[in-house]
């Protein structure tokens, strides 16, 4: 069975006693420095359990995905730089705070990536969102760029690249090529996804070691059809059409 080879661990925050940590399958650990996996809290595992379950209806699927996406966006945004910023509080004190620095934009890989736009907007109201359509060429079975529409000044922005599933990484790697060709430095790209395969993550680490990959969970691997195991099926279908 798929779950056998993945690590099972008691899940819960460190302040919780071991007896109150139920056991569940947790993310596969990876050696790559550029891959950031969300803390495996019971809440996150429960959300992932909901969206993996084939019996979960579309309304729940969308709602619970959105909750995970917001956590991913919050984690992703934490990689952006801040500068010191001192302000006066309503009670008249000085507070040595920080403020966001630099402009950002989202880029979704159509169509599944577009499902993550709402979550991004929940955290960054007026963020610009570019789109890239990449499809697998039936003849060569290689990904092919069909369409892109990106902000003019994208080279000056930090880019949050959105695609919920990182399987072989074919389209995401091509999307990075597109971004780089528009002058976005690798280290200004954050790739957000819900579930990643170790194979896909490794390809990113090898080809674009400065691109940060933020994921909620690294699964066991890929099957013969290059689907993530155990995965959750086709994210775009479940979100949009099923």
């Amino acid at each position: 069975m798929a779950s056998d080879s993945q690590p099972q661990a008691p899940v819960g925050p460190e302040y919780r006693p071991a007896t109150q940590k139920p056991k569940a399958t947790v993310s596969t650990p990876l050696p790559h420095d550029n891959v950031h996996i969300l803390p495996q809290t019971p809440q996150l595992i429960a959300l992932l359990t909901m969206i993996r379950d084939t019996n979960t209806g579309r309304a729940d699927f969308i709602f619970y995905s959105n909750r995970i996406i917001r956590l991913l966006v919050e984690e992703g945004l934490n990689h952006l730089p801040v500068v010191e910023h001192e302000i006066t509080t309503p009670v008249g004190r000085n507070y040595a705070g920080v403020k966001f620095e630099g402009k950002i934009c989202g880029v979704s890989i159509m169509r599944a990536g577009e499902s993550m736009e709402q979550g991004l907007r929940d955290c960054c109201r007026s963020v610009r969102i570019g789109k890239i359509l990449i499809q697998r060429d039936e003849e060569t079975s290689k990904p092919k760029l069909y369409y892109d529409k990106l902000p003019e000044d994208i080279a000056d922005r930090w880019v949050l690249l959105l695609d919920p599933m990182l399987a072989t990484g074919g389209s995401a790697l091509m999307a990075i090529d597109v971004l780089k060709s528009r002058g976005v430095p690798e280290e200004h790209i954050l790739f957000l996804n819900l579930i990643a395969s170790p194979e896909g993550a490794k390809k990113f680490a090898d080809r674009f070691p400065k691109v940060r990959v933020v994921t909620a969970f690294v699964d066991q691997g890929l099957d013969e059809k290059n689907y993530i195991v155990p995965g959750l099926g086709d994210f775009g279908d479940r979100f949009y059409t099923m």
Partner: protein
Amino acid sequence: MAMTTPTRRIHYSPPWGNASIIGVAGSSGSGKTSLALAIVASLNLPWVVILSMDSFYKPLTPAQSAAAFRNEFDFDSPDAIDFDVLVDRLRDVKNGKVADIPVYSFQKHARLEQTTTIYSPHVLILEGIFALHDQRVLDMLDLKIFAEADADLCLSRRLVRDVKERGRDIDGCIKQWFGFVKPNFSKYVAPQREIADIIIPRGIENKVAIAMISSQIQKTLQHKSAQHQLELTRLGKIAEDSPLSPNAIIIKQTNQVKAIHTLLMDETTSTEDYIFYFDRMVALLIETAVDFLPFTPSQVTTPQGHVYMGLKKTAEISAVVVLRGGSAFETGLRRTIPDCRIGRILIQTNYRTGEPELHYRALPANIKQCGLVLVLDPQMSSGGAALMAVKVLVDHGVPEDRIVFVTYMAGRVGVNRVLRVFPEARCVVARMGDDMENRWVETRYLGC
């Protein structure tokens, strides 16, 4: 491993902790109810309630009920009153617990299914012909009053009331009066005068007596308020001396969190931005707090037929908003749990004394069964209101370890005050601030 239960628990007595009970006895029709109402009206405070002993009539057997409809049942004997239940309920009130009061129907001569609830009175006025009859009740009374009235006046008042309000006829009422009320008066009611502290003639016309009693109650309330503030000060001293409780969880101060703090604290931030960033912060706080839900392993199958060993929650979450500030949490809460049941508690700080006061409460019906109850208040300074809110939940049967207090900003003393009294409860905080700070967080959010 982190310690979850500090060993020493500190006792906290809320202002309703040791309620004063005043008994008002007197003949039927002597004006006990009007007297009690006049006292409450002259005080005009939400913490004084009247409990009528009529609620404690024993349910009648079919034979007794038939006799009652023929006006041949003796309602004016102490035997008709369920003193055991009355004593239990008075004990609940005295101990600051929730007391479910039976509802008696005079039309049906039966106890109804529903009950009413008495909770958190500082003073309770018990009125009934036998309010000073049972020794167990007498032991709990702080003041014993006997209302005296002329017998003719009593009879005429009783006639009017029973015909108008209780659906009886004149013949039946007169039969009751001479068959039961009058003989019982000399046998059981009159002797209560001997143990009364005060005998009040002429009922509500007696303005002097009402003024005396209400000033006596005022004194009691002031004393309780002073006691409560001493209690809070004492808890504050204990809290000041201890390090931050391990059950206080401060969310990770990431760059984003720090930048949002800066925006929220900056007076020049627009209201629009303030609300947006506050909602975002609340969503983070709620995601942290809901991790305290109990989970159990759950195996699911994916659309591709693969198996995943995950988790599922085993109980529902509900929330209690501490008004009015807590309502600023609702948007962020609904983003995470759209169908969350939300109770409300209004605690106001008395601007003259600085004492927090409980004015209103409406809690979810199933709150006892919830796996987690979030108490929401954006700012905690002295912890007095927080302490009171958690105490209300505990009094309503919510296990302490299922309570998580969620706040944007708190001081160490406030947090410790709450967590020393309720060491199994948890507190989730976005930012530790000064111990005493004006409540600006909700003012900024609500715009006034």
